[in-house]
């Protein structure tokens, strides 16, 4: 032990120990104070944050309401779309860096991507792009970054077929990282049929999201969220984007529920009593399912309309009940398949469908029954006639001479009639559609009384249905010309044109159908109605909607009688313009119309389309049975050239089908 050095002097250190001890005490006290701050002062706040970390509100989806037709046939419901997602790190582990941040090897599993590609029948190109995308996402993954794109699922296929689903199921063991997620997709079993009436659903656009989820939405208190966004729209949600789907969105949508679940930092749910003890009340809010709606339209009738319209490119048909204003059919051509737009088959398919539909010159996305306003032509004449009768401006029984043309002043071109009618009174002028008589009628009656009657019948005003954007149409008056142009602008020619439904007069087929229903029922103008009841899931009505009166027009009975007789003779008289469609078994009254469309050549347009657009509109407006009217019908064959030849036969087929359906349904008990 002698190797050890002698003891050294420790006196130098003596004074320091006290200060060291104080220093140590001070730093430990600082930690203690901090713990006091965190645990005692902030304890409740941190406990709340801890609770928030582990308790998550999980959304419970709701089901959108079902649309049914008047006979209970399903027009729109939901089906399940199977979407395939992949987790990049599990599908292609070889894309990961070899070691995580602690230097441990990241699980070294085989790639399942080749099998995924095989089952989903990816093209080599598609597969290559996907694997590049995964490699990019995973290049910098270090095994712990939860926000890494490497851990985020990628949607690779939407709405895959059942065959592929069963194949995926069969090879599940070889398909690590593949997840098939069922999502509800709106389904329209009748495809194109009544697509404008039904509408479609689509993802909320940026503006709508900004409205329902303004900046800072997530941090708002619950009741404030409820106020801003009562229907609980979320990103990527779909909502009604037209027709009944949009107009009745708040009823159809339903409301999501939620359930509190205990979840760990990796997003895994924990169950069992230990986990459930951590949940605070209320633990669950049941979802409210969307309301089912019963529509007034009749699928079978609409199918007949579709068949009858096959020869024509473009047009609209409206069938309404004259005693209620309920719409039995609302048909616009060309139409679209709402399934393509509502997400069935995937987003790419919807995008492609929109592009195609908006590029179509025949405008399939336009609801021609209410969004398009057209000159009504001769179908307007009954309103001019009523105005003349009301104002006693013209003796209806006195005859006027029609030479096939009439000249007003020597400088202007003569106005033409369809042919030489000879001597015609009002009855003949309506049934044979003589323009010359109506020019004389217009001269005697003047513009404003005609406009007043037409407006009373709802023409030139929005009907109030507002399933789709409604065009108001136009019934010009002297005041309108003064406002639009100047006080001196007006001349008689405008009145003459208006009396025969030309010039500045435009109406929508829906307006015309409602107006003819009012003529049929003796002057009661209804608001058109498409939804008749809200129903429970079992089809029991919860709330039924009464028909809504829009206007009660005072028509003298003998005037009405005169008009009905004349309209009957349009079909039944040998000289009537629509005599060709006469059917002894069907008691139809109506009026043909062939309207000049006010065509302006557009040199940029295809010559064929230009030719098409230069043709006259073919109209037929009718009611049936003429002695006890039940329905009114308006057919517009856009640029169909001739009302009697093209529009009237369509109407006749629809009326025939209506009668047939009525008879068959009467013999069977109602479902």
């Amino acid at each position, binding site marked *: 032990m*002698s190797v*050890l050095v002698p003891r*050294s*002097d*420790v006196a130098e250190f003596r004074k320091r120990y006290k200060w060291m001890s104080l220093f140590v005490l001070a730093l430990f006290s600082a930690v203690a104070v*901090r*713990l*006091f701050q965190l645990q005692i002062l902030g304890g409740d706040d941190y406990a709340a944050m801890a609770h928030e970390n*582990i308790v998550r509100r999980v959304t419970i989806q709701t089901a959108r309401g079902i649309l049914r037709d008047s006979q209970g046939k399903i027009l729109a419901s939901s089906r399940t779309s199977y979407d395939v997602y992949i987790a990049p790190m599990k599908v292609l582990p070889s894309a990961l860096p070899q070691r995580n941040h602690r230097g441990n090897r990241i699980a070294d599993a085989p790639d399942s991507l080749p099998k995924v590609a095989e089952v989903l029948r990816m093209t080599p190109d598609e597969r290559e792009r996907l694997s590049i995308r995964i490699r990019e996402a995973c290049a910098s993954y270090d095994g712990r970054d939860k926000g890494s794109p490497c851990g985020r699922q990628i949607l690779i296929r939407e709405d895959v077929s059942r065959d592929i689903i069963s194949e995926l199921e069969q090879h599940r063991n070889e398909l690590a990282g593949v997840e098939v997620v069922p999502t509800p997709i709106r389904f329209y079993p009748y495809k194109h049929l009544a697509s404008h009436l039904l509408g479609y659903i689509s993802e909320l656009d940026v503006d709508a999201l900004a409205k329902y989820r303004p900046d800072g939405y997530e941090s708002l208190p619950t009741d404030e969220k409820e106020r801003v966004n009562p229907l609980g729209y979320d990103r990527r949600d779909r909502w009604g984007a037209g027709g009944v789907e949009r107009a009745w969105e708040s009823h159809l949508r339903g409301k999501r529920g939620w359930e509190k679940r205990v*979840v760990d930092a990796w997003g895994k749910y924990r169950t069992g009593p230990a986990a459930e003890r951590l949940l605070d009340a209320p633990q669950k809010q049941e979802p409210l399912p969307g309301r089912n709606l019963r529509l007034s339209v009749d699928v079978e009738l609409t199918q007949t309309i579709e068949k009858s319209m096959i020869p024509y490119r473009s047009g609209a048909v409206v069938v309404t009940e004259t005693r209620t204003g309920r719409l039995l059919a609302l048909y616009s051509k060309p139409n679209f398949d709402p399934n393509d737009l509502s997400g069935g088959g995937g987003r790419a398919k919807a995008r492609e469908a929109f592009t195609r539909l908006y590029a179509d010159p025949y405008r399939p996305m336009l609801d021609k029954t209410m969004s398009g306003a057209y000159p009504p032509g001769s179908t307007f004449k009954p309103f001019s006639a009523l105005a003349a009768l009301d104002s006693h401006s013209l003796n209806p029984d006195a005859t006027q001479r029609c030479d096939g043309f009439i000249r007003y002043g020597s400088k202007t071109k003569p106005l033409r009639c369809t042919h030489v009618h000879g001597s015609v009174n009002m009855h003949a002028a309506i049934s044979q559609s003589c323009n010359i008589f109506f020019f004389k009628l217009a001269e005697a009656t003047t513009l404003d009384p005609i406009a007043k009657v037409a407006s009373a019948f709802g023409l030139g005003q929005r009907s109030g249905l507002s399933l789709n954007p409604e065009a108001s149409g136009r019934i010009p008056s002297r005041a309108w010309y003064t406002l639009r142009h100047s006080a001196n602008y007006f001349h008689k020619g405008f009145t003459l044109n208006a009396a025969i439904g030309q010039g500045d007069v435009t109406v929508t087929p829906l307006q015309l159908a409602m107006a003819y229903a009012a003529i049929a029922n003796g002057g009661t103008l209804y608001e058109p109605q498409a939804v008749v009841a809200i129903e429970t899931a079992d089809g029991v009505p919860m709330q039924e909607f009464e028909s809504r009166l829009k206007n009660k027009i005072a028509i003298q009975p003998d005037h009405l009688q005169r008009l009905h007789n004349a309209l009957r003779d349009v079909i039944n008289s040998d000289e009537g313009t629509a005599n060709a469609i006469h059917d002894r078994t069907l008691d139809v009254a109506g009026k043909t119309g062939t309207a000049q469309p006010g065509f302006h050549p557009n040199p940029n347009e295809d010559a064929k389309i230009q030719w098409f657009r230069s043709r006259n509109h073919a109209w037929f407006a009718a009611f049936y049975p003429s002695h006890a009217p039940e329905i009114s019908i308006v057919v517009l064959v856009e640029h169909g050239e001739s009302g009697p030849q093209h529009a009237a036969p369509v109407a006749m087929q629809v009326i025939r089908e209506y009668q047939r359906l009525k008879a068959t349904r009467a013999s069977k008990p109602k479902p």
Partner: protein
Amino acid sequence: MSARDTLLSRFRDNFDWVLFVTASALAMIGVINLYSATSVARAPLNEVYLQQIYWLVGGGLFSAFVASVDYRHYERYGYFLYGFGIVTLVLVFILGREVNGSSRWIYLGPIGFQPSEFVKIFLVLALAKYVNTDARAEGRTLKDLIAPTLIAALPAALIALQPDLGTALILGLIFLSILSMLRIQRRTVGQLGFLAAIAIPTFMSFGMLGFQQKRIEAWLDPDKDIAGINWDPHHSRIAIGAGKTWGAGFMQGTQNQFRFLHEQHSDFPFPVFAEDWGFAGALLLLAIYLLLVLWSIHIASSAKDRFGAALAIGSGSLIFWHAIFNLGMVTGLLPIVGVTLPLFSYGGSSGLTVMIAIALLMNVSMRRSSLSTITFAR
């Protein structure tokens, strides 16, 4: 008198029970806490508490050996061990395996160890040896401090280059702690302060690597990027705070049980403990650490020679700075600097290092009394 008698009697009469009981209490609470901390982890992490027991038993045996050899033997080999430590640090650059962007580990077959951990002990020995021979009546000037500074700066620089700023910082603080025992001229203290005032900001602007700067920024703005760089400090604070006064109970702390705490066995065992046992438990634990550190100062004060005193201060400061930095970082008082909590964190090399430090304290403590005359009498 036989060596055996001396050993036994020395054990009987001079065994430092305070030191032993505090250290054992910490180790036991640590194992229990590791059990809670890793109960939800997947294998092999969920058996870390068992490994910790093996390390404690193995390390305890080794520590008993370290404690039983008179510390003045260590003084003799002080510089040699220090040199050995420097060589291993250099070897890290050659043989080291990169983990999380820095090379800290050397693998001998399946067993990996971190030379930087053991270098802390070697530095304490070397500095204690230097202090032992450098007794002065007058206060030291700047010139006198060059030699010990170089002794500390060499390993600190090598470790900082790994890069492992946390360990380098601990080395620096151990050095300052031993330095604080010495008599230094007041003017020199001022000069040192001035140098530090220039050196520290300069280093922070130019010497730190990207991720180190990010940690500082994250610490200054603790609510930013909670999903990323601030995940650990944020959830650590939540866990501690959620423990409130009495805690959730053993294995009941939700933030750990639901896997919001990461590194809960290495750098973040304290939040697990604080959430399970609340402020009461945390304060008790803090008191034990305080007692251990104050006791080591007491051991230093009763040491018979300069080497023993410096050894005790060095070992005590090692434990102290580890504890303060770990507790500071988990409570958000300090930025994240990967420093373990002595006897509480799982870790072979760091655990063994702390046990050796305690063994050295025990060594000094057992040889402070009059027994020394017996021991060295011939």
